[in-house]
């Protein structure tokens, strides 16, 4: 997605290397994805669902959600 859009920064982060981030984002399962501090979900999801999360994070309200 970062390849396709200049507004996207995509990070892959190893939890054990950065325990402060694991604590900050309450990582209890992986993969956990956090988008703009407002949308987060655990596990692999189909492309369509991932895009829906992206759109929710990009919406004006950037509504919060956790699955």
């Amino acid at each position, binding site marked *: *997605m970062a*390849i*396709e859009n*200049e507004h996207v920064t995509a990070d892959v*982060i190893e939890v054990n*290397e*950065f325990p402060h*981030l*694991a604590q900050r984002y309450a990582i209890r399962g992986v993969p956990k994805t956090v988008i703009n501090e407002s949308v987060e979900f655990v596990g692999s999801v189909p492309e369509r669902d991932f895009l829906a999360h992206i759109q929710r994070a990009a919406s004006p309200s950037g509504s919060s959600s956790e699955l």
Partner: protein
Amino acid sequence: MGFLSADNQNEIKHLFEGLAGEVQLIYFTQKESPLFIPGHECETCKDTRTLLEEIAGLSDKIKLEVHDFVAETEAAREHGIDRILGFVMTAEGVKGKVRYFVMPCGYEFAVLVGSLLDVSLGKTDLSESSVETLRTLDKDLHIQVFVTPT
């Protein structure tokens, strides 16, 4: 000692024949020191550098740059690297930023190889409708995917 067996190297070389253009791996690490400084340790920095050097050695289309995170603060800032270990993967045609804060081993190694191929092509395997939707996004999005070694 390297991480990739001769068989692995041959297999990856074969995959890298699919690299379309040059890919830059911009890696930030710390100077190796005999002194242990609490809070400044990076347990996998050295191994990650070795692994990235091995990967870069498998194709002349992969260019590895190694930077000192402490001494080259301007370069780190320019690439958005605020912690180590960290590296950026980029190529012509890549619009956003692809960053790794992980030693790419196990499953993440396969992810890295796939990303290298996508980045070199400047496009992904996403469906056309997904790409269209992404094109309409004009808000900055920071996607963080947290993983553990597998």
